[in-house]
């Protein structure tokens, strides 16, 4: 689960770097409509992983 979260997070950040390097309508659309949901899912998965780990630890 953490691996998936990290993968989504990295993909979102790659889109962000593309926006920084080439600010245009298309990179802004990718940032807003693809990057944001990816980051949101990554954060949720990461928190879920942390929560499950915290419950299992004595």
């Amino acid at each position, binding site marked *: 689960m*953490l691996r998936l979260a*990290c993968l989504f997070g*990295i993909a979102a950040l790659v889109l*962000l770097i593309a926006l920084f390097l080439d*600010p*245009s309508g*298309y990179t802004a659309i990718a940032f*807003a409509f693809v*990057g944001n949901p990816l980051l949101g899912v990554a*954060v949720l998965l990461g928190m879920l992983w942390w929560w499950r780990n915290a419950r299992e630890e004595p």
Partner: protein
Amino acid sequence: MNESDLGPLFELPADPHYLWLVGSAVAVLAIAVLAVGLVRGRLSRALLLPALLLPTAAYGIGYLFTLEESKQVEFCGSCHTTMSPLVAALDEDTESLASAHWQRGAVSHVDACYQCHSGYGIWGDVDAKLAGVMHMVRTVTGTYEFPIAAKHFNVDSCLGCHAQAVGFREVEEHLDPEIQQELLSGESSCAGDCHEVAHPESALWGIAGPPPGGTP
């Protein structure tokens, strides 16, 4: 004459902002932390907080960067299908209000589109940003129609510069209470109704141009 042949006096003053550099550095750092998690399948306690904060901070900087960068004329023109003919028409002597302002230097060549289409004051900025989000939604969903038309043009954009100008105040029509009321209520517009059209008709049809047989 090529612009670069004119000399340094004719270049726009440099106004660099380093938001992209800071944002890229934070993003690269975030990728490094997430790569550790991706390879190992777990993250130590020391890396948990950075793994959460760095990507969100990078995205926060990304938002600020987008808010600032989306004011640029090049940014507007980057939507090739719809907007690029409008930006290209600024350099042509089309006698439209936009090209007249552009060629006289009455609007900044950096953010001319934003200057005229954002209204006046902070709420003008908010309206323009919301409109920008809707532009992106319409581009993604393909729910836009030609000819491109501004649903509502805020006359405050014109008045922000012209209201205090001596020449503007001397025009008889501008002093007419009825005309003033019509303009302020949005019933009529400066462009098209009294002055030249805002943009040439041919540029409103995107890169495909007007339909054969003329505009309906």
